[in-house]
């Protein structure tokens, strides 16, 4: 069977499973719809959180990014895992004890303010829409590349599937499909990685093989070989960095804090029965995430080595088969600038290397590569059977769909629960609220699908937004809400607004208003727009803590609530 046949088969099987789970897990109550009834086992919640968190970007793009960045790529590895430490230690157990349905719920009640709730609702919807658009796009891309059907139909099929389980099953349907999706995506990620580790280094475990000697060449370590290959072509050494230390520091911090402040991740911890389960499921979540995140840097190094060894300075007529296959997708391009029929790939932006290139008769870098190819073409580069290639397609879809569903729930609950039930129409019944939640989820799927087909061209740059805004708005407000009894609504709202406006202003200036100025000389303290959320977060804390002192402390009921969420045991007669 060919690649397409296998792909259709795998997609059919996995999608049937997802829809089957949706039908089995229909819900009839808002508690079921928003938090799966609070009955999810911590292990299942861990797997669901991992799938919820690992998006199309983690699955398809991350290894490729690291492959081109080398050590600088560590910001993503540490940033997107280290955030779970903050989440587990500072937020998850306490927010679980609070026991409501959404993040704006906590902000609104803790700061006894509809304004605070509204700001939180706007942030949650903005962050989630930014993110979900990328997922829908990922679905379309996988369909179009593996099945050669139009992006529109790819996105459409994805929408129908997400619609079915998100609208029918709410959080419960999403949770159990995410568990299934985790299994699909992790298997699809590990299998090619293991095979490549074996071919390149003779070692079964990619994480060890990545530091081992190159197969058949004693005394030559893979990373030393890779450093040499990189340097010979004018790139900086793979294990050395080229970003400034302060920027690496701030980007890592922004990604960590942003991760801990993302509403679709936080609400996953509302679904377990107990506070201790919230802690435990944070451990399971990071374990399941780490399995992929520890493999990604190995895949990155293998892919880079393979790429430089088989493509660079090879005659085009002798290009490997996968190169030809992927040329048709536009993900890799060869342009023979000096007309010698040989593919020159080197760093033509390195002035120190220019004379070297000239003496070789090279007239600029001739190969343009999309970073996504490092994962998508991996099985072909390693000459794996067709079904493994098809499995990667199913894995990419699982990663994109699982994240999309979690985000859609945040959007739907922000509208039906926070905006409608808690602010505009407090008198609606539970079943009316549930209907609105389903309609909102459905509408959000359609809007996300539209942007997936017609992506605004700024999608890539707004991802920095999602993390920066989560870091600068939600994280400080949530942490102070738990750890400072004295923090009042005036301080919190002012802090949130200052953090938001500062961060958004900085990113908008460098990404949209004046993109030419987006270089390290113009950045404040050398901090790039990707890392500015850290500064926004610090500003938020500073403003809240100082301004809050001039206003009265929160009412007694709120202070008692804070005391209460700090202790796992439920008191008698307390509302849940």
């Amino acid at each position, binding site marked *: 069977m060919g690649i397409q046949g296998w792909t259709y088969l795998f997609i059919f099987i996995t999608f049937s499973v997802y829809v089957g789970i949706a039908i089995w897990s229909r819900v*009839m109550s808002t508690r079921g719809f928003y938090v799966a009834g609070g009955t999810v086992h911590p292990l299942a919640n861990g797997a669901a959180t991992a799938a919820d968190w690992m998006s199309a970007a983690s699955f398809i793009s991350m290894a490729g990014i690291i492959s081109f960045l080398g050590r600088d790529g*560590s910001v993503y590895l540490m940033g997107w895992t280290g955030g779970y*430490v903050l989440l587990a230690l500072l937020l998850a157990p306490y927010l679980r004890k609070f026991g409501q349905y959404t993040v704006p719920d906590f902000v609104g009640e803790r700061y006894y303010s509809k304004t605070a709730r509204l700001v939180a609702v706007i942030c949650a919807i903005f962050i989630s829409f930014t993110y979900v658009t990328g997922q829908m796009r990922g679905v379309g891309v996988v369909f179009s590349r593996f099945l050669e059907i139009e992006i529109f139909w790819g996105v459409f099929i994805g929408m129908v599937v997400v619609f079915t389980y998100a609208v029918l099953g709410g959080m419960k349907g999403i949770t159990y499909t995410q568990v299934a999706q985790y299994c699909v995506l992790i298997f699809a990620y590990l299998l090619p990685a293991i095979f490549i580790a074996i071919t390149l280094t003779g070692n079964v475990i990619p994480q060890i093989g990545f530091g081992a000697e190159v197969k058949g060449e004693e005394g030559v370590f893979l990373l030393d070989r890779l450093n040499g290959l990189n340097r010979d072509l004018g790139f900086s050494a793979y*294990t050395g960095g080229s970003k400034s230390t302060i920027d690496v520091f701030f980007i890592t911090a922004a990604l960590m804090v942003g991760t801990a402040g993302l509403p679709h991740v936080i609400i996953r911890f509302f679904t377990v029965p107990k506070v201790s389960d919230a802690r*435990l499921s944070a451990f399971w979540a*990071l374990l399941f995430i780490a399995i992929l995140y520890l493999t990604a*840097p190995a895949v990155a190094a293998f892919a880079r080595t393979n790429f430089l060894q088989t493509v660079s300075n090879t005659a085009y007529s002798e290009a490997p088969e996968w190169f030809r296959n992927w040329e048709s997708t536009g993900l890799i391009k060869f342009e023979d600038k000096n007309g010698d029929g040989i593919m020159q790939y080197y760093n033509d932006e390195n002035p120190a290397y220019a004379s070297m290139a000239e003496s070789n008769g090279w007239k600029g870098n001739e190969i343009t590569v999309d970073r996504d190819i490092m994962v998508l073409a991996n099985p072909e580069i390693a000459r794996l059977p067709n079904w493994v290639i098809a499995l990667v397609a199913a894995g990419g879809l699982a990663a994109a769909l699982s994240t999309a569903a979690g985000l859609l729930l945040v959007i739907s609950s922000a509208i039906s629960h926070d905006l409608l039930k808690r602010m505009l129409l407090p008198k609606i019944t539970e079943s009316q609220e549930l209907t609105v939640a389903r309609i909102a989820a459905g509408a959000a799927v359609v809007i996300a699908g539209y942007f997936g087909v017609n992506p605004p061209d700024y999608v890539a740059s707004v991802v920095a937004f999602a993390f920066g805004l989560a870091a600068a708005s939600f994280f400080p407000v949530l942490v102070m809400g738990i750890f400072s009894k004295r923090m009042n609504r005036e301080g919190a709202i002012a802090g949130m607004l200052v953090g938001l406006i500062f961060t958004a202003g900085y990113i908008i200036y460098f990404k949209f208003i004046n993109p030419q100025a987006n270089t390290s000389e113009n950045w404040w303290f050398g901090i790039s727009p990707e890392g500015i959320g850290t500064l926004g977060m610090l500003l938020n804390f500073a403003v809240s803590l100082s301004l809050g002192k001039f206003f009265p402390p929160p009412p007694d009921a709120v202070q008692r609530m804070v005391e209460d969420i700090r202790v796992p045991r439920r008191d008698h007669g307390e509302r849940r």
Partner: protein
Amino acid sequence: MSKIDTRADDTPPSRSRQKYWRANLKILLLLLGVWFGTSFGLSILAVDVLDRVKFAGFPLGFWMAQQGSILIFLLIILVYTIWMNRLDKAYGVEEKRPKAGHDAS
């Protein structure tokens, strides 16, 4: 259940709650110190110094940044989970049983 759990009906005295909270904060500070030290300390600020050491074929700083830090994060959460469960029991504030779910599905 025939036995009545009397403790569940009393609010624990607030002094013991305060002690519990202080013990909790100590655990947090210690573990967040480890978190900060491994990620921002060893893997970012001291990365070039550590790179002079070779570890299983890796420059140590590079390994810490791409593998070691993630493993330590995992360990931090595991230690936190076990430690907090013990603390909850020591102060008698652990949850006995999950409340039955109200999901009508």
